[in-house]
């Protein structure tokens, strides 16, 4: 499968009053057309920031490192260097929404409260599909129908606060997809929803992705959701991808101690009465990023003198998989 | 990791430990300290208050002492050099009276022949420091043997020293601000506290009343009350009446803030936790609610000062506030109401600089405090 998006060596720094912090560190991943990449990590792991960088949505005090390469192949097959697009350029506006769509965690907050759902949808449709007002409205209603919103022709004139949480997220999906993106970035789209509603929305997203043949980046902290929706997975810890590969393989056979720990810590309804196995220690604050491997402060298998000194590089032990851990790269360690 | 970072490790660790066990006020102070403009404003204001408190000592002359030899005289700037050479100590030239060749009015002109050196802690008019301690020493002045007075900022049409008058006015204006703010604070605390604590019907009624007072334009309201002061009242009575007027109607904004703070803090998780821990209402208020909002209330108090000061100045300026012979910034500025005054005796505007600087200082400090008042806003 051709990669529609490749991100290489992405590092993001923020200038703050307490100095420069680097919440994303040398991140590399790719998305294949028609497949879903799950980006999983706990709060503060930098998963959300990484995807915002793709569309130049970071605040003004953020900067990308010089080695960062982000290449996107658009619907026409043209390769575009995402980091190089000029702010305010037509090309960037076409990419935003028209090529890459984004859904956020809070469906209420991602709508403007003072315009109707229809108004905001029609804006996107007119921008990206070049339709006139009347046609755009028809299309908006069609999209609302498609995401399972009943009585769409009435809903289109409602304000976001008049819909329930689940409906709002459906409407957000309809809004994002109505611009016709080839790649969808979904940033914790189901976290704020109840389980039964989450099931509906996951269902919907999986179906739409398959029907439209979109590529998708699905950000979540829930490995359960990843297992159900992602084809590939990248596990992030403190701004670094520690392990990536096909979702099934990574979950079945995790190689990085953090991935193992994360999987072990998940409570399960299938196994009662087992004692849970937490990952020891606390997540370090982003301002006090540990030296060497970021996980060494909590890793039971950390090698003193190595893991706490030098950061491991990414190695591929099994074809199609990559892991960033000294336990899997003896040669490198000796060389270092 | 570089060597430099290794070296700073221990100090960074110490700093972190210090930060961990820093209380609210320490954190606020640390953050306020970083606000350079506010720190500067605080020192300026500190000086003003000191000058006001020790007005008798700082001012070379009394507020109504006249210098008939120097009427509407220009400011005398102490200098180190004149035609006759330079000196280590500052001095002013003497003055002599001449006739204006055009208008034939008697005017004072500098006499470069005479030098009067400045002295500190000079003997002068006997005064009572803080109204209690009798002394005849003043901060600066000319040798009492010299038959001339020094007027740093000139004199007015009666020959009264503008510098001295401004210092005394500073005391009056700032004290009206302080007392006015205190009165409205106490009222606001009681009224806002009742509204926020009892909520419901009482709250509704109080809200209505507050609303009514808030819609009346404040200066015309003050004017109405000030106009009602009997003409025969003494300056002291007028002074207290003024503070009372400013205080009695200054509370609505503060009361609203206190009420909304109370209402929002009342529903904070940690206050519910205290209630569930079995704390009595008194303890909840004293231990949990008050410490959480005192810093915000202090900010509100600081930023309500300028309104008091400006109101007093405005009222006195149009003749409805303090009346001569009292001196306040507004009273002093009454003499500078016309374009003519700006052209002929611009130094009469010096009190205006005090008004502007004081209001500016309070506002800047208020801003600095506001930024510092919630040291936990960045925490998560």
């Amino acid at each position, binding site marked *: 499968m051709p990669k529609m998006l490749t991100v290489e060596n992405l590092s993001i720094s923020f200038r703050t009053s307490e100095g420069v912090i680097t919440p994303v560190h040398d991140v590399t991943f790719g998305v294949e057309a028609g497949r879903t990449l799950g980006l999983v990590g706990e709060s503060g792991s930098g998963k959300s920031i990484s995807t*915002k960088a793709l569309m130049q*949505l970071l605040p003004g005090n953020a900067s990308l490192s010089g080695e960062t390469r982000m290449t996107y192949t658009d619907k026409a097959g043209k390769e575009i260097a995402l980091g190089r697009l000029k702010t*305010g350029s037509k090309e*960037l506006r*076409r*990419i*935003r*929404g028209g090529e890459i*769509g*984004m859904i*956020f965690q809070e469906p209420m*907050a991602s709508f*403007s*409260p*003072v*315009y109707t759902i229809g108004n905001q949808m029609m*804006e*996107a449709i007119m*921008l*990206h599909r070049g339709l006139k007002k009347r046609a755009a409205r028809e299309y908006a209603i069609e999209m609302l129908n498609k995401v399972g919103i009943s009585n769409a022709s009435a809903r289109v004139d409602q304000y976001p*606060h008049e819909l329930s949480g689940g409906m709002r997220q459906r409407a957000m999906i309809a*809004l994002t997809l109505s*611009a016709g993106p080839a790649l969808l970035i979904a940033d914790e789209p189901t976290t704020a929803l109840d389980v039964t509603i989450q099931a509906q929305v996951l269902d919907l997203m999986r179906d739409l992705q398959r029907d439209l043949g979109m590529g998708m980046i699905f950000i979540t902290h829930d490995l359960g959701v990843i297992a159900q929706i992602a084809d590939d997975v990248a596990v992030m810890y403190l701004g670094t991808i520690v392990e990536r590969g096909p979702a099934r393989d990574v979950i079945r056979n995790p190689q990085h101690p953090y991935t193992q720990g994360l999987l072990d810590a998940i409570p399960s309804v299938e196994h009662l009465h087992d004692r849970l196995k937490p990952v020891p220690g606390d997540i370090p604050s982003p301002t006090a990023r540990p030296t060497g491997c970021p996980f060494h402060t909590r890793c039971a298998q950390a090698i003193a003198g190595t893991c706490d000194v030098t950061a491991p590089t990414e190695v591929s032990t099994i074809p199609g998989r990559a892991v960033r851990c000294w336990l899997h790269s003896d040669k490198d360690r000796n060389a270092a | 990791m570089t060597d430099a970072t290794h070296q700073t490790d221990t100090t960074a660790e110490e700093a972190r430990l210090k930060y961990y066990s820093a209380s609210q006020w320490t954190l606020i102070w640390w953050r306020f300290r970083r606000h350079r403009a506010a720190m500067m404003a605080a020192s300026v204001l500190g000086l003003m208050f000191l000058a006001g408190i020790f007005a008798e000592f700082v001012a070379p002359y009394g507020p109504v002492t006249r210098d008939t030899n120097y009427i509407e005289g220009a400011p005398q700037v102490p200098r180190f050099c004149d035609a006759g050479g330079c000196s280590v100590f500052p001095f002013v030239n003497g003055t002599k009276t001449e006739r204006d060749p055009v208008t034939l009015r008697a005017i004072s002109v500098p006499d470069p022949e005479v030098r009067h050196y400045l002295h500190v802690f000079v003997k002068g008019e006997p005064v009572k420091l803080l109204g209690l301690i009798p002394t005849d020493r003043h901060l600066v002045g000319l040798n009492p043997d010299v038959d001339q007075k020094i007027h740093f900022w000139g004199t007015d049409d009666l020959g009264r020293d503008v510098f001295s008058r401004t210092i005394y006015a500073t005391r009056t204006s700032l004290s009206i601000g302080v007392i006015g703010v205190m009165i409205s604070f106490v009222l606001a605390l009681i009224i806002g506290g009742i509204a926020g604590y009892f909520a419901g019907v009482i709250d509704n009624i109080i809200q*209505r*009343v507050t*609303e*009514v007072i*808030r*819609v*009346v*334009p*404040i*200066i*015309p*309201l003050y*004017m*109405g*009350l*000030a*106009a*009602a002061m*009997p003409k025969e009242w003494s300056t002291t009575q007028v002074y207290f009446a003024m503070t009372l007027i400013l205080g009695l109607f200054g509370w609505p904004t503060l009361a609203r803030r206190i009420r909304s703070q109370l209402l929002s803090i009342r529903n904070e998780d940690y206050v519910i936790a205290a209630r569930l821990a079995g704390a009595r209402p008194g303890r909840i208020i004293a231990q949990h609610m008050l410490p959480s909002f005192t810093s915000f209330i202090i900010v509100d108090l600081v930023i309500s000062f*300028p309104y008091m000061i*400006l109101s007093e100045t*405005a009222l006195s*300026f*149009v*003749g*409805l506030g303090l009346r001569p012979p009292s001196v306040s910034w507004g009273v002093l500025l009454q003499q500078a*109401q016309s*374009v003519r005054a*700006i*052209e002929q005796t611009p130094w009469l*505007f010096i009190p*205006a600089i005090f*008004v*502007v*600087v004081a*209001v500016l200082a309070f*506002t800047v400090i208020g801003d600095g405090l506001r930024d510092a008042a919630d040291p936990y806003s960045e925490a998560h």
Partner: protein
Amino acid sequence: MLRFTLERLVGMVITMLLVSVMVFLIMELPPGDYADRYAFRKYSGTGVNVTEADIEAIRRDLGLDKPMLLRYFDWIGGIVLRGDFGQAFAFETSVAKVIGDKVWLTAGILFSTLLLTYIVSIPIGIFAAVRRGSAVDYGLTVFSYLGLALPNFLLALVMLYFANRWFGADIGGLFSDQYRDASWSVGKVWDLIKHLWLPAVVLAWSAVAIQIQTVRATMSDELNKLSVTAARARGVPELRLLIKYPTRLAINPVVSTIGFDVNRIFSELPIVAVVLGLTELGELLLRAYLDLDMNVAGAILLMLTFTIVFMNFVSDLLLAWLDPRIKLGA
């Protein structure tokens, strides 16, 4: 919307009622009563010896011997039913005559000030928020401080001084000499407009300073909202995005404080009027206070306050129209 409007309307009437009570109390505040002052004013210096009985007669004539509550109802009844504000003793005529067309002049000053305030402060506040932390933003902050700190009467004096230097002496007041006592004509209106800018600038000064900061603060908040990021992620062009999403919400606090702005303007009016020699209600109010002509003062205070209450009502309606969430939450 109708329900909302009616509700606010009822609220407005109640507030006005309470305000009128308060104004009446202020009118009653000065020592002695109207009869005393009337007699003193009318006969002082005339050599006529006024006795207690004379004053008592005046008191009866004017109905001042009635209890306070009744007098309040007489007063407010006269205003509401007949537009009669009572007698202005200082001028030997009715209050309505004294006030006359000053109401319209005041309205002119008020609206030109409001217009100026919003035209200046909204765009600048938005600009400052977008360019947060820039030199321009910093400069505006300093300006805002000055706006708060420089009392309007001082500003008026300074402006008057410079205006005198640059435009000649004919700048204070509301009319040039040739129109002052002329009847209304196109020329007179134009003359008025030429004179209005100075008081408008002086009165708008502090309101602009405050509103810039308000707009800047809310705009900064709005710019960080997820809905703006989401719209940006949909490829909405930046300028359009700015106007459609954050700005629409950032002007809400401005709209909601229209009443306060009017309040501030009326508060400053009497003092600015003294300096600039404006002949409108503020100046009349001050003169009435100094003369203790409480009927005139009360009438003006009532008018000013009612205007503020009414503007609050207007701002409520505007806000409800701007923000669809408000109607539901009412």
